[in-house]
Each structure stands twice: as structure tokens, then as C-alpha cells.
């Protein structure tokens, strides 16, 4: 076993743990998974749940792309199409990306800060197990007489209030997701603040821990605002209030302000942990410390702060005073500065490094390139005068899919490949991992790049039919969509192979250039780790050059 731990006794203890590991695992399915308080098992539950939701949301995207393959109405009714666009977004945002990041946090944060478990293990169990109920409720609306929500994931009134009685299920599902996220965030903050191993000072923490710490604060500040917004929709729909009803003295535009006050931090909730994962992977496979560690931390914090004062750039067209539009335009463009710092630092980390291109590295580099494209179209959208043209077109769809799919989803894949050997004890198939990457990277561009042109040509979002002039680009986009969707099945194959069939055992360090506490424990990580806290010093952290 290769070791980089400086404390020999610690490592011996962990090795001992690994040997009689089975003694500590609860027996039986119920005790092991349903009643579990173990951060690794809960992390696994989150990740499996997120992958399932990724495929359910993906199936909905396939319905959307199939209908849009040709102009005209072929496969589904317009109302069902609208339900698909709405549910696809809700499932992917709240069911796939967010739980996947919480899964990573559960698995990796205690391992990376040298804690034996999360700070509040029982609450951890609860925050996972309300999710299956929330999504069962949300998905069940598709089978109700009044149908699922069809007003877009933004749930703008008065359109969203035309949803039938199934609307109550949507609102309560959102409430439950919110409670789950807030509990998860509290748990993560408590773990990071209270459970770090001796010597693990804040500025020695791996960047994934830092980005999640900041994300957790965003969650605590933003999710309750969404809960408030949907609660007001609920009372407007069922109890005769008029928060958003102009006839009763309310204002539907106010909903947009409240929603996006949540909604903009939400997009950083989905992408900040991605920044963290990339900042872990690039140094490992470049065999160089992360360039500008402290700058990365401060850049993340500034992005988080700015995310709370830019929300109205989602609604430039509602009619704001000129001063308001200018403020939100400049504040939005300001975000490009810390984000630019990050991209610069990632590129500088790779500069003159001894790079190798294993699957996690490929996904991380793919992220840096493609996320930057999404960032650039974001800057175009930030220009108020231009946004009036782009608003609610496929250009917006292309923009946010570039930052979410090759952005958040690619880094989820990168992180999964990076830590899979640590989780399972086996190496995955590098050959199939690379095939997965190249298929994903090619088809994600075939899927989303043409949508830029569609948007600039004026094709609106959320429509089941379109003018024949948009036909060719839509066909390309649909072909890319089907191929991208199919490529993700490779990922499932790689995981199944890695967990149950791979013969190649992983070492403790797994990757030659990997540094950090998680690589000091055996692979697979024993059920209980760091029951005796390790003592951390500069030699054990990835950014040793900057850690003091």
C-alpha cells in the first residue's frame, strides 16, 4: 500500500479497521441502508438516487427532442410537451444535480477534513430519505387528471396557477426538497466548522470542501425564499389570497423577483461544487499544486456574494427603471471577473504540468473548455439591450445547458470517475471511461451548439412546434440529444463493471499525483474512517505551496 500519511500509527489503525471492516457494517438491507447513519452509505444512496433521477429527467428530454425533431406536431399533445419541459427541469435541478452534489459532499467531506462522520448523522439519514417521497409526489402529478405542472420550472403565475389540484402536490414536493437541502447544508457546515482534524485549518482545506461550504450557505439563504414563493402560490391557488393576483391588489411580477432571488443563487449552488471538483482533479493529473489556491477561495466567495444581487437579469423584459437595468447588467458582468480568475487558475495549473489524460482529467478539461463557452454566452445575455432580443429564445436554452451539462454534469462524471476507485476498491475500465467521455463531449456539442443559432434566429423556448425555417438545426440538435442520452448508458455500464466485475484492485492513493487525506485511507474506504483523528500538516495537502 502506498502511503503519504506522515503519521504511521494512524495509518496502521485504519488498515486494522479495513481488515475487520465487515464487523462494523450493519447486517440486513433495512439496517444497512434505510436506518443508516453512515456518511458513506448515505452518500451512496444520494448518488444512486441522483443517477436514477438523471435518467428519468433524461427520458423526458428525449420526449422533448423527439417532438422537436421535425416541425409540426407528431408525438405528444402540446400540454404534455409543456409538462415534459417543466418536469425535466425540476427533476434535473432538484432530483439529479443537487442530490448528486450532496452525495459527493457526504462521501468526501468527512474523508477530506479527517472527520469520522458527518456532524449530525441521524439528520443526514432524514434529509436523504425524504427525497424519494418528494419525487414520488412530484412524478405522480403526471398521472393525475389535471396533469403535471406545465408552466415551466419557474412556475410563473398566473400561468402556474392554472394547474389543477395537482398543483398542491408540486408545492409540497418543492417544500420537501427544500427541507432536505437545508438540512443537508446545515449538516455540511457543522461538519466543516466543528469536525476538522487537528491541523486542518480553513486554508488547508481542499477546494471541494471550500466550495461546498460556500454552497451550503447559499442553500440556507436561498431555499427558504423558494419555499416562501411556492407557499404564496399555494395560498393564491387554494385559499383565495392575492399575492400575485392583480385583481386582488397583488402583482405577478413580484413572484418573478422572489423566484429569481432564489433562482440565481440556485444556479451557483449547482456549479460551485463543480468548481471544487475540477480544482481537485486538475492538480492531480497535472502533478502540480493548484495555481492560486487562496485566489480560488476568494473568487468562490465573491461569486457567492454577487449571486444575490444579480437576480433581475432574468427579467430584463418586465419593465424596470433604466437605473435598475443598468445596475443588474453591470453586477452580472462583474461575475465574469472572479469566474475569469478561476478559469485562468485552472489553465495555469495545467501549464507545464506533467499531464496525463485519464477519464476524470478528460472530463475536467472538457468542463473548462465548454463551461467557458457557456460563460461567454452568459455575458452576451447580460447585456440588457441584447437580452431584449435573446430573452426566452433557444439562445438562453443553449446558454444554461452549456453551463449545466458540460458544466455541472461533466464534473459530476469527472468526480465519479476520480473517486470511484476509492469508493469501490476497484479500478473502472479506463477504455470505456474514455469512450464515454468522447461520446459525451462530441454529442453534447451537436445537441446544444445549434441551439445558439436557433435562438439568434428567433426560435422561442418551450414550444412543441416551430416554423419550418428552424427545421435543420432542430434535427441536428435532436440527433445529438439521442446520442448524448445513449452515451450515458455507457456510464452505467462502467459503474456496474467497476463495482461488481472489475478484477483490478485500487491502491490507497489510486492516482499517482493525488494528495489529500482521502487518499491516506485504504481503498475501498472502510466503513469507519478517522475514528482517531489524523494530524494534518502541510505535506499532506494538495496545495502545500500555499497552505501556510
Amino acid at each position, binding site marked *: 500500500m502506498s502511503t503519504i500519511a506522515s503519521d504511521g500509527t494512524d495509518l496502521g489503525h485504519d488498515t486494522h479497521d479495513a481488515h475487520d471492516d465487515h464487523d462494523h457494517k450493519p447486517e440486513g438491507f433495512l439496517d444497512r441502508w434505510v436506518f443508516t447513519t453512515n456518511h458513506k452509505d448515505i452518500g451512496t444512496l444520494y448518488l444512486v438516487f441522483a443517477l436514477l433521477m438523471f435518467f428519468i429527467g433524461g427520458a423526458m428530454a428525449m420526449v422533448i427532442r423527439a417532438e422537436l425533431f421535425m416541425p409540426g406536431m407528431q408525438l405528444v399533445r402540446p400540454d404534455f410537451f409543456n409538462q415534459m419541459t417543466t418536469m425535466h427541469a425540476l427533476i434535473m435541478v432538484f432530483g439529479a444535480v443537487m442530490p448528486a452534489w450532496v452525495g459527493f459532499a457526504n462521501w468526501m467531506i468527512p474523508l477530506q477534513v479527517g472527520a*469520522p462522520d458527518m456532524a449530525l448523522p441521524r439528520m443526514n439519514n432524514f434529509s436523504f430519505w425524504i427525497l424519494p417521497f418528494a419525487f414520488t409526489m412530484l412524478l405522480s402529478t403526471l398521472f393525475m387528471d389535471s396533469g403535471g405542472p406545465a408552466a415551466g420550472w419557474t412556475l410563473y403565475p398566473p400561468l402556474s396557477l392554472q394547474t389543477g389540484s395537482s398543483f398542491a402536490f408540486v408545492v409540497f414536493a418543492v417544500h420537501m426538497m427544500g427541507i432536505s437541502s437545508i438540512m443537508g447544508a446545515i449538516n455540511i457546515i457543522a461538519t466543516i466548522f*466543528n469536525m476538522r482534524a487537528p491541523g486542518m485549518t480553513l486554508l488547508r482545506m481542499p477546494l471541494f470542501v471550500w466550495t461546498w461550504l460556500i454552497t451550503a450557505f447559499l442553500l440556507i439563504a436561498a431555499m*427558504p*425564499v423558494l419555499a416562501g414563493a411556492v407557499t404564496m402560490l399555494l395560498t393564491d391557488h387554494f385559499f383565495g389570497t392575492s399575492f400575485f393576483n392583480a385583481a386582488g391588489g397583488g*402583482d405577478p411580477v*413580484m413572484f418573478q423577483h422572489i423566484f429569481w432571488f432564489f433562482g440565481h443563487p440556485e444556479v451557483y449552488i449547482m456549479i460551485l461544487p463543480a468548481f471544487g471538483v475540477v480544482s481537485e482533479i486538475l492538480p492531480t493529473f497535472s502533478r502540480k499544486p493548484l495555481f492560486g489556491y487562496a485566489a480560488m477561495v476568494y473568487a468562490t466567495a465573491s461569486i457567492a456574494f454577487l449571486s444575490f444581487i444579480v437576480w433581475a437579469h432574468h427579467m430584463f423584459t418586465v419593465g424596470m427603471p433604466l437605473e435598475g437595468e443598468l445596475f443588474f447588467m453591470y453586477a452580472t458582468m462583474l461575475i465574469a471577473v472572479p469566474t475569469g480568475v478561476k478559469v485562468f487558475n485552472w489553465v495555469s495549473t495545467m501549464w507545464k504540468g506533467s499531464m496525463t489524460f485519464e477519464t476524470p482529467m478528460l472530463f475536467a478539461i472538457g468542463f473548462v473548455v465548454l463551461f467557458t463557452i457557456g460563460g461567454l454566452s452568459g455575458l452576451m445575455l447580460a447585456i440588457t439591450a441584447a437580452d431584449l432580443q435573446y430573452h426566452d429564445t433557444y439562445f438562453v436554452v443553449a446558454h444554461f445547458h452549456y453551463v449545466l451539462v458540460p458544466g455541472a454534469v461533466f464534473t459530476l462524471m469527472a468526480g465519479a470517475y476520480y473517486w470511484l476507485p476509492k469508493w469501490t476498491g476497484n479500478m473502472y475500465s479506463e477504455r470505456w471511461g474514455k469512450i464515454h467521455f468522447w461520446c459525451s463531449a462530441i454529442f453534447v456539442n451537436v445537441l446544444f451548439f445549434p441551439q445558439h443559432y436557433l435562438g439568434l434566429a428567433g426560435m422561442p423556448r418551450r414550444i412543441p412546434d416551430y416554423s419550418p425555417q428552424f427545421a435543420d438545426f432542430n434535427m441536428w440538435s435532436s440527433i445529438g440529444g439521442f446520442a448524448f442520452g445513449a452515451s450515458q448508458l455507457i456510464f452505467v455500464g462502467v459503474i456496474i463493471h467497476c463495482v461488481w466485475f472489475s478484477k483490478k484492485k485500487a491502491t490507497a492513493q489510486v492516482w499517482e499525483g493525488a494528495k489529500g487525506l482521502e487518499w491516506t485511507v485504504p481503498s475501498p474506504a472502510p466503513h469507519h474512517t478517522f475514528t482517531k483523528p489524523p494530524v494534518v500538516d502541510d505535506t499532506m495537502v494538495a496545495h502545500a505551496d500555499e497552505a501556510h
Partner: protein
Amino acid sequence: MSEQNPTAPKRGHGRLVGKLLVVAVAMFGFGVFAMPPLYDTFCEITGLGQAGIKTAGEVEESAAPRQVKVRFDANTNSKLDWEFRPVQSSMMVTTGEATTALYFAGNPSERDSAGMATFNVSPPKAARYFVKTECFCFTRQELAAGEEREMPVYFFLQPDLPEDIEELTLSYTFFRNEDDDVAQNAP
């Protein structure tokens, strides 16, 4: 398990979690209780949103009821062989008062047919003060062969109708509803 970690005093979690919960609850309160009044204030200062819309009470106070002459006009598109005319050619209408006017429509042909009426108000600037509460033009109308019927329109004139409008015309044109009346001709 956490008790085993000397860096994690049990009480520390409780206090930190308590503080974080307070933040979460405060943000919920911010969304529900602080945003609406803040938004109202913002709208009042900037004159945006609902602040520009007058309530019913304010409108009634601002203008006294008066009499206006309303003319009625009827046309039929050449593809629809109906007889269509207003029952009254004009009437005096008090602003703010609900009023009913009648049109007569008949189908002298030998086949059932359906029509849809479009409407027009002139002068154009009077249009936004002319409010139809119920009208035959809202829905498709069907007349069997030889059927005749009176078609009502319920409307009122908003009290803040500009002073210089003393006369206005409501005009309808009936078009054949081609999508639907083919159904009955099908075998």
C-alpha cells in the same frame, strides 16, 4: 460516533445548527413577509407595476355618469350566406351602466353552418373603454338550415371614457367557420 472526535464538542453542533436554522427561518420570512411590502414600496417610488392601475373606487370618484350614443353595425362575409343585422340601429347608453343590445341572425340556406363574429369599435381610442361582459362573438355560433335567432351582447362603458367622445360605433362581421362546419358534411 462524533463523540469520539475530540475536535467535536457535542454542544458546539447544537449552537451552530441553531444559528443556521435561525438564518433559514429568517430567509423564509424575508421571502414571504418582507418582500411583498418592500416590493410595494419600490413600485410606489418608481411608479411601476400595480401602482399605475386605478382601483374601482378611484375610477368612480373621478367621473360622473353621462349619456353617450352607441351605433350598431352588422356585416356578413361573402362566404357565409346568413342574414345578420342589429335589432336597434342605435341607443343612448349611460357610462358605467350595464347595457344589453340585440342582433338578429338567420340562416336562410338549406344547409347547417357555423360562423364566428369579429368586432370593431370606432373611434379606436374608445375601444379600451368599451367592455363586453358577454357576447355572441366570444364563441362559435351554429345555425341549422332555416334557423333564426336573436343574439345578445352585454356591455358597459367605463366611466372614465374621455369627454370628447360623444358617439361611438360597435361593428360586427360574421365569418364562416370553415374548420368546423365541414364536420356535418362528412358522411
